[in-house]
């Protein structure tokens, strides 16, 4: 999942060409704007067949690859239980 998230970030976060990111890179500081964060979120929903609940739609959720991974895992496991 981690690699897939990195791929989606590179494809959709609208970061400047050549930027390298780690799990902890702050994507907003790296150049992600709110418009791109929306595209990133839609791509994540499609790739993992999930839906981010309203309370997770904030800047903290999409701040870094590791934050995204935590959010996706949390939603996926909640879906399995339900």
């Amino acid at each position, binding site marked *: 999942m981690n690699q897939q998230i990195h791929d989606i970030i590179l494809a959709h976060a609208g970061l400047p060409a050549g*930027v390298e990111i780690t799990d902890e890179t702050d994507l907003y500081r790296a150049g992600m704007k709110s418009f791109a964060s929306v595209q990133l979120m839609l791509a994540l929903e499609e790739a993992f067949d999930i839906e981010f609940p309203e309370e997770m*739609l904030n800047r903290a959720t999409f701040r870094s690859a590791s934050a995204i991974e935590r959010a996706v895992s949390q939603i996926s496991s909640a879906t399995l239980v339900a």
Partner: protein
Amino acid sequence: MKPAGAVAGASLAERVRAAAEIAAEHAEAVDREGRFPHEAVDAMRAGRLLALSAPAEVGGEGASLADIAGICTTLGGACASAGMVFAMHHISLVNLLDCGMESAWHREFLTRAASEQLLFASSTTEAGVGGDLRQSICAVEADGERFNLAKNAPVISYGEEADAIFATARRDPDAPSSDQVLCVLLKDQMEIERVSTWDALGMRGTCSHGFRYKANAPQEQILPRPFADIAAESMVAASHLLWSSVWCGIASDALAKAQAFVTAEARKNPAVTPPGAPKLAETYTRLRLIEAAIRDGLARWDVMRANPDAGPTMGFALAMNALKVSVSTEALRVVDEALMICGLQAYKNSGPYSLGRHLRDIHSARLMIGNDRILAGAGQLLLVQRTAQTRRS
């Protein structure tokens, strides 16, 4: 509780009223001459209104954003330019309070600002970024413990009158355009040159001239939080709330004139309901909706601020966008309807029912961050907003 910085014996409401009276007295001259509302801002200083929202420990009075919004409405009704100066100053103060309290320099600066009633201006706009708040071309260039900054700013409202300017810039010369910081620049740390003159339809007293400037200041004056967070978590929402409150004040004053006009008609002929009365009731209703929208926005702000770890949701951002778009549109309609009610008495540039200044001032509302731009952003957010109704099964 008597706040430390308060003027002896006068309540906040009395101090606001005193400043509003002076603002109203000079509003016409400010508009006609396109000059800064010095008298009104001096009265704000005398009433110690410029650090109200700072906590008492640094010399403020701990006023809430709702308190500040109420004052924006009162001052905006007296003189829209003075009200907008007050609003813009307090937006910068929110930014400073949000991230300055843990930093020694900013804490000290806040104390000084409260004591000396310093006036803050904001320099976010830059030539070449197409009006996008979240992009900068200029960059902070480290110079030992200090930094240099050079910016080409097509607009800085009251840039000449402010004691300090809050400027956005890229974090360093290698940072992407959206990796911004907010720097506090003091007047004596800047070389500033006016490059264009604000001669506008309305809001003429905001003196939003264009400037080019260079600054050299200690790095500790840069606010510690990234501007991305400042903008998303407080600045944009505070701007929409306080601007809307000023516009509500303009609309309220226009409605008051229309009401006085219709009442005067009724006195002349008490047996007949004046023809303008139903229209007056319709306009009154519209103003009540504007006030309700602002109260709703302020309540949402309080909820968001009570839960700072989560930060604002997309729902909150959408609500603030909706507030700005609706109040800027509806307040214009209120002033326009007041003009229809008073007729030529409002169209004339003098006399008790004159509404030309109100109409010109309120026309700025839809343009201060263009509504089309805001709706484009809101449309994006709506694609991802989740409610029970939009959920895919």
